[in-house]
């Protein structure tokens, strides 16, 4: 994508001016970098002992990989359950019967407007009083991820189904399908396909949200990094940088997938 139409191609003077401005930008970036460097240096954050542990195999085996496994376990469980929740409630909200549609809409709108952290706290700290057992942090995190992201996914799928041409439903009825069959065999598959990029973007949100598990002590990547690695090598900053890097790499891969799916579905249409 190009925004070059916002400015003329620079002439000789423009080129010279842009060079000077680029130098200023570089200087400003260097100044920020220098400031961070010296301040961190004063706290000994750059010493090799703080960074080399991140390259050691045993550190990866004891902290990073198990943490990643925890994060992915919560995210995968969340994605599967949220997708189920989303399909059920999208269908319910598209129902012809008001007694199904209205409660479904209420549930979806409620869970969409409650902060995820409150849902996790409710499950984690409230479970003993409510159901007599203390649920694990994993269950509380998945509970929150499912209800919140499931509601968002329900809205995405509903928008996808509503975006289909009216003829799809009419053709399904014309060949003798019942309402449920038309939804299950004709409308939902197309609605989901049309919304695949938005769904993958929501999965990125879900993966990032799984880091909230850190707050209730769920054994995941942020927890292993900041409470595991940092406690052993007192290298909070390097550990946090590494963990952010892991999240960024995974999310960028998912982002790329969403773009590719978007290009594929718009190319086919």
């Amino acid at each position, binding site marked *: 994508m190009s925004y070059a139409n916002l400015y003329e191609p620079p002439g000789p003077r423009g080129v010279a001016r842009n060079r000077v401005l680029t130098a200023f930008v570089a200087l400003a970036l260097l100044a920020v970098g220098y400031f961070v460097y010296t*301040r961190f240096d004063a706290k000994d954050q750059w010493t090799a002992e703080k960074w080399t542990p991140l390259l050691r195999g045993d550190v990866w085996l004891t902290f990073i990989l198990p943490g990643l496994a925890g994060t992915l376990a919560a995210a995968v469980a969340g994605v599967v359950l949220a997708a189920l929740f989303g399909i059920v409630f999208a269908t319910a909200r598209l129902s012809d019967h008001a007694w199904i549609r209205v409660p479904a809409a209420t549930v979806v709108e409620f869970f969409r407007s409650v*902060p995820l952290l*409150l849902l996790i706290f409710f499950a984690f700290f409230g479970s003993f009083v409510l159901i007599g057992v203390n649920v694990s942090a994993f269950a509380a995190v998945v509970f929150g991820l499912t209800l919140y992201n499931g509601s968002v996914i329900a809205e995405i799928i509903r928008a996808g189904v509503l975006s289909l041409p009216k003829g799809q439903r009419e053709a399904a009825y014309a060949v003798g399908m019942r309402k449920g069959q038309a939804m299950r065999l004709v409308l939902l598959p197309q609605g989901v396909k049309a919304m695949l990029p938005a769904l993958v973007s929501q999965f990125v949100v879900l993966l990032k949200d799984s880091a909230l598990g850190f707050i209730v002590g769920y054994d995941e990547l*942020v927890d292993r990094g900041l409470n595991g690695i940092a406690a052993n090598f007192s290298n*909070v900053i390097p550990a946090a940088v590494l963990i952010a890097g892991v999240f*960024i790499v995974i999310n960028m891969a998912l982002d790329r997938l969403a773009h590719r799916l978007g290009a594929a579905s718009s190319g086919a249409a």
Partner: protein
Amino acid sequence: MEALLTEGGTILAAFWMTVRLTAVSALGSLVLGTLLTAMRVAPLASLRATATAYVTVARNTPLTLVLLFTGLGIGANLGLELSDDIATNNFWLAVIGLTAYTSAFVCEALRSGLNTVPVGQAEAARSLGLGFVKTLALITLPQAFRAVVAPLGSLLIALTKNTTIALVVGVAEASVRMREMIETYGDQVIEIFLGFAAGFVLLCLPMGLLFGWLSKRMAVAR
């Protein structure tokens, strides 16, 4: 119910903190997000690269980690004292973290808004002799803003809910209060949860309606 009624004052205080965090961070994100958008479409490759790198990092890092970073990095290791008072200091640390995270999303929204502005607008501005800054500030950005009122509204609602994560830098807002209350009044878990949830619904519902109305009113007729 009694718990919610007897603790009404402290709950309101917690939500007042939520509102303040949201308002200040929203303002900061709008300013920084606009600046990032301008950088991303600027004629200078260095500015574009800086903004792109920033947005990629900020968007893909969990907010929990961003806030931990501001707490540990800026607070503990950069040694920046924003205020002598610890509570005020933590408040501003949370604002920095929330702003750093949300502005990346504001930038993405505004950039897609710029795409809705017809090419002829910028071309006409250039043919009148306006340079990059004036074309952007007077012609294309104002139209882009009017196109993305609804997405910005969604971002504001998301920000309101995200302020609950400010507890990791020690800001006593609604989520902290709810956790404390569940511990104190264990027998009234459902009422407490529904009460705090209602607080957020009350905050977010008017925002959604207002921005829905604004986006229709501000839409550029084409």
